[in-house]
């Protein structure tokens, strides 16, 4: 990472620390904010966070590796998480899974080459009575059928265009 980038990231983290405080319990909100802003948490960022909170980088690393929703490596703009727990399994998640792999052109645990989509498994999303359940970023889809998969992806592509324009304006 370049020095200038490091400086900007450090300033950003210090801003978050101002907001959430220096207590240990500020760690997760700070990491979530960082993750939301950068789609991943860099090795440098973990050290700055540790430094600011007066804990050790290994402790931050422990937390980041513990939570599925905090990542060190970048993920796609849209992360598809399909529930694989028993109720959704019985409700037919396997066919949805195949459809997702087909339409996105990637397997589970992978990110598309254009960086737009990631596909992963999730454990129970709490939607067991309405399975199969699929989480796309923060949006939950229930009773997903293979037929719907294409439509969901199209929705994403549309918002991605909008999002990309927003970013360009920012």
């Amino acid at each position, binding site marked *: 990472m370049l020095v200038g980038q490091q400086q900007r990231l450090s300033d950003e983290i210090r801003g978050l620390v101002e907001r959430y405080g220096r207590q240990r319990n500020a760690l997760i909100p700070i990491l979530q904010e960082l993750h939301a802003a950068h789609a991943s948490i860099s090795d440098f960022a973990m050290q700055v966070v540790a430094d600011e909170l*007066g804990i050790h980088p290994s402790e931050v690393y422990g937390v980041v590796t513990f939570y599925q929703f905090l990542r060190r490596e970048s993920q796609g703009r849209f992360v598809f998480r399909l529930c694989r727990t028993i109720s959704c399994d019985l409700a037919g998640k396997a066919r949805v899974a195949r459809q997702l792999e087909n339409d996105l052109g990637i397997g589970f645990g992978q990110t598309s080459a254009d960086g737009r989509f990631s596909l992963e498994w999730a454990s129970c999303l709490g939607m067991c009575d309405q399975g199969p359940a699929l989480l796309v970023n923060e949006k939950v889809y229930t009773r997903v059928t293979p037929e719907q998969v294409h439509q969901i992806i199209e929705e994403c592509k549309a918002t991605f265009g909008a999002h990309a324009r927003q970013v360009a304006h920012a």
Partner: protein
Amino acid sequence: MSAEIRQDVVGDTSRAPVSQIPKLGKKATGEAAGYIGGQVSATIDGHELKVPLGTTILEAAKSMGIRIPTLCHHPDLCVAGVCRVCVVEVEGQRTLQAACAYPITAPIKVYTHTQKVRRARRHVVDLLLSEHYGECYTCVRNNNCELQSLAKEFGVDFFRFGHVTEPRFEIDSSSYSVIRDPNKCVLCRRCVRTCIDVQEVGALEASGRSIGTRISTYLDKPLGEVVCINCGQCINRCPTGALHAKDASDDVWRAIEDPTKHVVIQTAPSPRAGIGECFGLPPGVPMTFQMNTALRLAGFDKVFDTNFSADLTIIEEGTELLLRLYKALVAKEPVAFPQFTSCSPGWVKFLEHFYPEYIPNLSSAKSPQQMFGAVIKTYYAQKTGIDPKDIVTVALMPCSAKKFECNRPEMDASGFKDVDYGLTTRELAQMIKEAGIHLPDMPKSDFDDPFGTRTGSGVIFGAMGGVMEAALRTVLELVTGKKVENLFENANIVPVRGFDGVRYVELPVTEVSPTVEPLIAHLVPNWDFLKGVTLKLAVAHGTANAKKVLEDIKAGGPFSKCHFIEFMACPGGCLGGGGQPIPTSPEIRAARAKAIYDEDAASEVRKSHENPAVVELYREFLTDGPCGHVSHRLLHTHYTPRGKYID
């Protein structure tokens, strides 16, 4: 002359990092006052006892003489409650409870070995073994392993849940000091709690989750590449063979068996107080003279006493302190105060990583180990006519960080590697056993000349406050011209001794000597500048405590006004070092300390500047005196700002 301990300055010395100190509520009043801080009845296996509210079941049982097995629990560490080996049945509770983590807050009935309890414990161990790769007879911890003992205690006679037959993880031997073998790790997190709470280094932490959980460093990097101070405290608290020191004994045996090599060993004070434990003796039985005999039998050509170079360290470091005081008070030159001791390599590396801006405060004097190495390969080589390239210097130390220290690239003042190998107490005990020797049965014999005189000032380096006390004995005598015996009873400067994490002491200099000892007469004209000065001194051991002191200094607190601070990386000082016999506990360390102070009291010479071998060294070899050119080249060093960020 009297020294005053200032507890008010020290404040809270609890070891938990600030962020983990529980927020205590207000003091109980009214009705609550009746039971908060009160007594509560505990009935364990039918025996009743009143215990203070909040006592854990484990502590209560212990005080009744009832044993509850444990694994993740350690007397030096905070409660974790992660292993579930200590489960017991509590009347009225549906599930079993972890005795180590269950505070008694109401009358309670506990059963510690019902069928349900025994089966659960056995299953816990069965499960641990199902994930454990290791063959006991090839393991450093064979016969001194808590997992092995539990398996025996619970009567494990087959692998109920299977057993790993191939190693699953790579062994990390990147560090000069500490080797990690995750195959043997039971995830008890004692190392994590040690490295964070006791040492404030934080090299190790659990990462991942569920069956993917591992103990890892930052970014899973090799230990040698992350911030680790090599103190080995994690090793001493690991219940299994997952952490151990990098063993140099094969190299040492090779040197001993090579007829062209002259192999000398220097032995530090703390191993003597601990090594008996490796031979089944209770802690605190000194083995100094038996060890000398054993070392010669094992094949070492000469056995020297590190006390010699400890005395040398005191002269150099003490002179440096007096020079700093002179510069500050008389010449009004800017000098870094307080002066920090530099003999603990774990502490030195801690400072280099976390507080590099304070490197100027570190005494430039090398540690006794390194001074001795340099002296052996120069002065001793000349005196005996042995080519230094044929001399192999081995250091027996209570310390794993000494292995790193002797490999620091700048430690070659003699033109060779000053100290070739560092051995820990445990490794030497192993070598002695391999030589077929039962140490306690050995006849006693003395150290070899020319460094043979034993002084008490060197011995006490092993205990917390020891370097400070030794330095004071010399400095006070030089400055006041009075015998320390006349200033402190039996020359015991008791106020600087003790086991509290941080000590702060004030010592007013009420009188000074009219003359300056010839040894340093060329450095200071007279002692008038010290008259009426109150020396402010502090001692801190365990780097979590060192951190507190440094933060206070940074904030301009009372420790920033100190003149001299002794820092030791390990709790209790060297006698609690990471190379000492396992297990360790506050009681064991106290017993070792007693052995050390007894040896000091029994020494004929108890002040560094009276050690005849040291006096002779200055007369014959270091002719321009303490902190002179020769001594600077051989006995002083420099440090490396390392920082804590990792690429």
